[in-house]
């Protein structure tokens, strides 16, 4: 019953609500971003050690080319690397979705997804 996991799941549910029930393309893209943030928070919280330091060797633990006592006090570095890659991919997805929303507005004059059903005559 920890706070990190519950807030991450609440963010995923809120993003899903925005994606399904809003009638504006820009608001749907905002919901996509909120859902991605919830997933990232959940992934990073899975690799936490109680009372650990960040995964960077500080200058005090460095004794003639060997990091001493570092491996038993640091948090997990792998989920942080995965989330770094995922953030960059999220940039590409949101940029392409917003570009397509701009073009839809230019052709149809409206941003309602239930009005853009017919091909352009």
């Amino acid at each position, binding site marked *: 019953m*920890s706070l990190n*996991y519950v807030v991450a799941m609440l963010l995923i549910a809120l993003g899903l609500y925005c994606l399904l029930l809003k009638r504006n393309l820009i608001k749907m893209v905002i919901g996509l971003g909120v859902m991605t943030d919830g997933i990232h928070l959940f992934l990073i919280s899975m690799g936490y*050690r109680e009372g650990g330091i960040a995964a960077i060797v500080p200058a005090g633990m460095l004794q003639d080319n060997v990091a001493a006592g570092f491996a038993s006090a640091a948090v997990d570095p792998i989920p942080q*690397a995965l989330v770094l890659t995922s953030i960059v991919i999220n940039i590409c997805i949101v940029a392409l979705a917003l*570009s397509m929303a701009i073009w839809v507005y230019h052709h149809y004059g409206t941003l309602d997804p239930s009005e853009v059903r017919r091909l352009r005559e």
Partner: protein
Amino acid sequence: MRRVVPFIAVLVVGAILIFTVTNNLPPFGSFPQRKLGAFENQSIGQRILENGPRETGATDVVTSVVWDYRGYDTMGECTILFTAVCGILMLFLATRGQE
């Protein structure tokens, strides 16, 4: 009326997610302990933390994971970034026949 069914679906999914997270996961903050089958006390992150600064020569373990232990994923991500920017430039800056 037809907006009630998606709303109930979102509530059901949220309830299932919160129920799963509070009951079936290892407790928060127990890093090398995992509860999956045979992987009781081993974790690949622990091995990377022990051998990382000595093998790669970088004090930042996250950067060495991104470039040394998982270099293929980062190269694929650069390809995705390049392709997406090519798509956006094609949408906005290409000259069209009519219009």
